[in-house]
């Protein structure tokens, strides 16, 4: 017999009180669609945040960390004596990375590294007549800089690649341009901490939407920056690296640390607030959706309990006719699982629908146009599984209770 009598009984129960069945299904549908929507939204927000962050942040950065802490150098040699040093001075300390080419050639052999670029970063004053603004000039490898940071994407005026051919060209952040009343083709005077000044021509304006960057940063070519510092061809201040999966930087950091004497730092280490924010959002999303699922589970539990109380006489009859406790459990558990399956499938569809709707809501902040949303199959599968587990538990408890009904007590009345 293909379809057992138990399944037939479940089917009749589900179809003879359609309203009640639908209410139970809606509980699951609501829980699962909220789960799908919440996780999609949070992932979307995290992704938007990450995209924003990676417009000025590489996955891994190599730099010269500066001299070690020598405030109490004598203590290192005479740890048990009391020694008083005043006005300790660092006599010699090398800045930046001197042998960049040899390091990058080693890095190119690492399989998990996708892109590498070098930078010469200089703290400067930008001057336009009386107007003076503190900022950073970033001397870049035009081609590789774009591969790591996708900076050409953020140009609002001018063409990124033009920098290659313009030794005197400079790109400035949109807020910086505004503060100095600069337009394309205007001249910009730069003063370094060593007292060197130079003039550049503004050939473009960029907007990363990270306010700190747009307010203080300017790009020139790497060689122009070296000239400004009067250093040789192999000098850089930073080596920026992108890896295949930005969530998995630790193994690369460990490997690269062994290859260079310089400080190797992942974006997670440098921006723990970003990681914390993203983790917190994930936790909130999961907590909210699990709460909703739990509430839906209670709904199913209540409805199943109600059904079983309504049908207590029928259960007694089934048992009197020879149906075992196991049969009764199976009948009611099947009902719960069918409610869970259908409610779950509809829930995934409805969740997708809500996500698409919310994804269209205009949101013009920080380079976004609409509210962000992610559509990960993993989230949908997980929501469905959670929903199924919830209904299984919510159905199993009343079903087990039903299986223990003593037919005599019911029939005797």
């Amino acid at each position, binding site marked *: 017999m293909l379809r057992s009598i138990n399944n*037939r009984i479940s089917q009749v129960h589900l179809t003879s009180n359609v309203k009640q069945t639908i209410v139970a299904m809606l509980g699951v549908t609501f829980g699962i669609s909220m789960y799908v929507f919440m996780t999609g939204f949070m992932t979307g927000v995290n992704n938007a945040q990450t995209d924003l962050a990676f417009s000025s942040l590489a996955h891994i950065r190599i730099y010269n960390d500066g001299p070690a802490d020598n405030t109490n150098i004598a203590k290192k040699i005479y740890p048990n004596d009391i020694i008083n040093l005043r006005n300790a001075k660092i006599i010699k300390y090398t800045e930046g990375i001197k042998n960049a080419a040899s390091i990058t050639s080693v890095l190119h052999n690492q399989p998990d590294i996708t892109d590498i670029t070098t930078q010469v970063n200089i703290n400067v004053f930008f001057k336009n007549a009386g107007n003076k603004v503190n900022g950073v000039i970033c001397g870049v490898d035009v081609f590789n800089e774009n591969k790591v940071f996708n900076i050409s994407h953020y140009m609002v005026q001018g063409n990124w690649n033009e920098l290659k051919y313009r030794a005197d060209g400079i790109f400035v952040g949109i807020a910086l341009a505004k503060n100095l009343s600069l337009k394309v083709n205007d001249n910009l005077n730069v003063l370094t901490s060593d007292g060197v000044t130079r003039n550049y021509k503004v050939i473009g304006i960029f907007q990363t939407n990270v306010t700190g960057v747009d307010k203080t940063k300017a790009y020139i070519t790497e060689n122009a920056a070296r000239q400004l510092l009067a250093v040789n061809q192999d000098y850089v201040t930073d080596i920026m690296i992108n890896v295949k999966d930005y969530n998995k930087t630790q193994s690369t950091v460990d490997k690269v640390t062994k290859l260079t004497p310089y400080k190797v730092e992942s974006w997670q280490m440098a921006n723990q607030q970003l990681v914390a924010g993203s983790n917190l959002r994930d936790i909130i999303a999961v907590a909210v959706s699990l709460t909703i699922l739990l509430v839906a589970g209670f709904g199913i539990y209540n409805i199943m309990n109600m059904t079983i109380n309504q049908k207590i006489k029928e259960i007694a009859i089934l048992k009197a*006719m*020879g*149906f*075992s*406790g196991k049969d009764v459990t199976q009948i009611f558990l099947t009902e719960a699982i069918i409610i869970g399956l259908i409610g779950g499938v509809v829930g995934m569809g409805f969740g997708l629908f809500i996500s698409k709707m919310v994804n269209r809501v205009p949101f013009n902040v920080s380079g976004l146009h609409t509210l962000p949303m992610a559509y990960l199959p993993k989230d949908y599968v997980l929501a469905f599984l959670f929903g199924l587990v919830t209904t299984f538990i919510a159905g199993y408890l009343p079903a087990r209770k039903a299986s223990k009904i003593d037919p005599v007590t019911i029939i005797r009345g």
Partner: protein
Amino acid sequence: MEKNIVLKAESITKYFYEPEKFQVLKGLSFEVRKSEFLALIGKSGSGKSTLLYVLSTMDTDYEGRLTINNRVVTGGTQNELAAFRNEHIGFVFQFHYLLPEFSALENVMLPAMKLKKRSKAEIEEKAYQHLSLLGLQDQALKRVNKLSGGQQQRVAIARALINDPTIIMGDEPTGNLDTRNTQIVFDIFKELSKERNQTIIAVTHDDDFASQCDRIIELSDGSII
């Protein structure tokens, strides 16, 4: 056990503890033969229903020993007893306890679908036969809650017969029927016992009904008199 004994009760004793300790069945011993039509009578409250539930294997909370079809059922697990009832005992309640969401036909088929000894087509065929026997062929596909009380009781009887049980037990099976329907049910029971050698144990208030049976057991305050 003798070959033609289908049910043997030995010192069946049962107490109720609520609201206070009270002995309902006081060491009842008797035997029922194959194809016997037995009437169980006695005043209201004498313990007839209680005894019948013990005999049906549904109530396991008693002392003594019960043997049905050469099998000691006392001490069996709930699941064993459920399977045993399904195959060997047909039960008709005083109130036609049917599954209201199913058709008359499906209600009758239910115990056989559980037993799984025949194909669905065979079971359906047999269920139709039994319904016709009880004059219900036209009602087969109706939901049982659309039928009259007498019709529902006859559906319940057809259901009790579907697995050809050794024993058919009825707790006032004609209690809610008019004289005409009572006679129909009685004739069916008689025919089952005489022609199919099935054993009938029926609790009844109806002296007329009892007097037509093969044997009468009368209970008074939990004892046989």
